[in-house]
């Protein structure tokens, strides 16, 4: 893996956004050659989305030939609900950029047959040629998407019941009322994300530090599903200082020492 350690949330968000920008430009998408991007929701990626919107507005990138696949969506929440992941993606990303609706893919938590919806999602990813870069976050319990502790590390897109930790973490989006938080969600599986060509995990804040430690300094374990990415050939973790608080000093020093090399990945693209 590569572990990027930036000073704070804003710098981590910017680094991640620049990385995505450069990957997109390098891929040089066009008609018939779409760049497929897996996307997360939640508070962690907000800064990254803001930066990407900025780069779009500056004319540095276009999402015209980008296909997106979101990781998850709540079951039973109306699509127009302000806390649905559809609303999140529209308000925080899609409405600000030039992406077409038909190139976005978000699981439908109100589908009549939920498992069929999940299977169809896997087919769509396959039809799009697989995912070039899957961007994700990590829960305080070490989960990726809604692959809660105990999820199979080779799982595919399916319906999951949310763990208590997750419900508590999400209550802040539902007026702090635990009863209002949906209890089930559709989510890509650990296996689904592992299939991506490259995976980038954003981790910021002290409350995620223990999960990061479990994910990269301990063994591969289905109780901390992000640990599965130790077995992916191209994983990139982007963190801020606070998220490294539970790591060994040696680990942090090693990766910080490599930042000057890794920063080349986010240099401004050459002028055309």
């Amino acid at each position, binding site marked *: 893996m590569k572990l990027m350690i930036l000073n704070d949330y804003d710098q981590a968000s910017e680094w991640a956004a620049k990385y995505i920008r450069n990957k997109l430009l390098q891929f040089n998408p066009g008609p018939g050659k779409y760049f497929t991007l897996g996307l997360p929701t939640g508070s962690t990626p907000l800064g990254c989305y803001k930066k990407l919107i900025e780069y779009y507005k500056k004319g540095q990138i276009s999402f015209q030939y980008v296909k997106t696949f979101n990781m998850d969506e709540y079951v039973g929440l109306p699509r*127009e609900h302000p806390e649905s992941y559809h609303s999140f993606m*529209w308000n925080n990303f*899609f*409405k600000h950029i030039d992406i*077409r*609706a*038909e190139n976005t893919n978000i699981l439908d938590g109100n589908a009549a047959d939920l498992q069929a919806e999940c299977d169809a999602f896997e087919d769509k990813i396959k039809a799009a040629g697989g995912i070039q870069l899957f961007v994700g976050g990590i829960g305080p319990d070490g989960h990726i998407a809604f692959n809660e502790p105990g999820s199979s590390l080779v799982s595919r897109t399916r319906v999951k019941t949310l763990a208590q930790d997750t419900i508590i973490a999400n209550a802040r989006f539902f007026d702090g009322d635990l009863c209002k938080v949906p209890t089930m969600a559709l989510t890509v599986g650990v296996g689904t994300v592992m299939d991506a060509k490259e995976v980038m995990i954003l981790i910021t804040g002290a409350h995620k530090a223990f999960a990061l430690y479990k994910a990269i300094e301990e063994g591969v374990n289905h109780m901390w599903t992000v640990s599965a990415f130790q077995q992916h050939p191209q994983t990139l973790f982007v963190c801020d200082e606070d998220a490294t608080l539970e790591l060994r000093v040696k680990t942090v020093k090693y990766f910080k020492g490599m930042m000057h090399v890794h920063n080349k990945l986010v240099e401004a693209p050459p002028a055309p």
Partner: protein
Amino acid sequence: MPSNKSVSDAPICQFVNCRILRDHKLQREDLWVREGQILDPEKLFFDEKGFADKQVDCEGLIIAPGFIDVQINGGFGVDFSQPSSDVASGVRLVGHRILEHGVTSFCPTLVTSPPSVYHQVLPQITVQNGGQHGAGVLGVHVEGPFISAQKKGAHPEQYLRTFSSPGLSDLLQTYGTLERVRVVTLAPELEHSTGVVRELSQRGVTVSLGHSAANLSQAEDAVQSGASFITHLFNAMLPFHHRDPGIVGLLTSDRVPPERTVFYGMISDGIHTNPAALRIAHRAHPKGIVLVTDAIMAMGLPPGRHTLGQQVLEIQGLHAYVAGTKTLSGSIATMDMCVRHFRHASDLVLLDDDLNVKATYICGEEVWRKKT
């Protein structure tokens, strides 16, 4: 880029770089319009896979719904109550000029007049949509003649009338037709008014209480029968009294049917109502306030003597009096002035931070823009 054709072929216009008043705050948001309807862009995106065909850059201005003026007696030299053979062009002129004030729909208002005037004028006013030609005409507001002699204000006493029976016969006789009448201002203390209010409300005509000496109980009865509006609150009615609040008491009355709201017109020109009174009314019943101009023919004209209906007036600065008296006879403030005053005391218009109208849109089409 064509609009997605699954729902509609019509082009979609996206207003960008604007600030929208939403949830009591000015927020940076885009506004999406198709065929004169405001769209939910999220629904457009996910359901229709639609997108904008055209973008209008609002340059950071505030975007607001077009103003609706339900009490305007004329302006720019046109007096709606003046019988003429070409009322339509007067209405058209006013409709066109008020675009400048951000008004996109209005109710031409007629003050108390003899039946002959109504019979001549009303048939010449047509209900129509707004557009490039001017603001839309919603229908006529007939203010009188079934009002109180005690509270006639600037209305001519000799043409006041009472109801001889509860039905609509007196109104039909006076107005000639109720076809394009949208609002009727009457005094509910008049005998037989309950039946009249009920019949008018059932026909879909808005009944407004005004120019009246009614007490609260009479006003509440009228609301129970269907009245839903108050004509220029505080003016031409009994003043608020703590033991009988009169019509003003409707703002906090508990005898208003639960699913209904009583709206009240306010002339917020800084002259007809003291700002403190304006605030009291607004704080007591914020959901009911409706800003009106009650503008007279002299709005937009220079100071001097002019005619309103059957009477002569005198313009002094921003004040319009019945000639030779100190009785106010309507205002000459424009709608945007009223909005600004209201803020200082609280179809689409583009406003700068001082609430000056920069551009007016009807059905998403620009119909007026301030020349710089």
